[in-house]
């Protein structure tokens, strides 16, 4: 799994690409937490358009980062989530907690 990031005005965008499972999640979590630790921005956008596989490890990754950011008074939203990713998130009602944008351009988090 690849983790890349870019900084925009007031926001950190994190791009995840590849397969997100229990094996790859620990490295991705470490890299994301290190970025979050150093950031001053109040918004994190998680771009999942490059994710090619995800199981429930993705729920734990997102919920864990959501809780860390909430404690810091920052927000998390998701963009570019493929349909299979949205399905997994919907099973625990994650969309009620976090804004989740899909692959379609008009649904993307602006």
């Amino acid at each position: 799994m690849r983790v890349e990031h870019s900084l925009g005005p007031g926001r950190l965008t994190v791009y995840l690409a590849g397969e997100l499972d229990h094996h790859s999640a620990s490295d991705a979590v470490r890299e994301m937490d290190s970025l979050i630790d150093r950031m001053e921005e109040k918004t994190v956008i998680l771009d999942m358009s490059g994710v090619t596989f995800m199981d429930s490890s993705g729920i734990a990754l997102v919920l864990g980062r959501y809780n860390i950011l909430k404690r810091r008074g920052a927000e998390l939203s998701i963009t570019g989530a493929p349909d299979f990713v949205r399905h997994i998130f919907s099973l625990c009602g994650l969309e009620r907690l976090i804004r989740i944008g899909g692959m379609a351009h008009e649904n993307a988090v602006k």
Partner: protein
Amino acid sequence: MKTRLNEMKLKFPSLSVNEGFARGAVAAFAAQLDPTVGELCDIKTAVSEAVTNAIVHAYPDRVGEITLRCAAGELHTLEITVSDRGRGIGDIKRAREPLFTTSTDGERSGMGFTVMESLCDDVRVSSAPGRGTRVRLIKKLEPRRYGG
């Protein structure tokens, strides 16, 4: 499953790197049933959950053996069994509840069985504490070219 047209069995150690190997192997086996892209994605995800459970929960402090069996049957049915000889599950009903996890590091969601149930036609779990767990996943594929 009445008639098995083809089957395979794999044994591998409970190393997390084998999560990707296991779902890839099942996807390659399932190809003969001519699944859609969506069905293949469902199968890979369900297998990943079952194998991850065995790695994380069956053998929490040692590397043990995981057995993966696949059978392709009539009526476009794929049967996948993931079994281990690990710790076992004391209360299966509770383990299957959404968001239930025994993990304490905050990096497991407790959604593994819920994901398997949402992606498969049937999920059966049998377990004996101290002796191991067997998870049986049934996926019925939409008839396409396979078998007419």
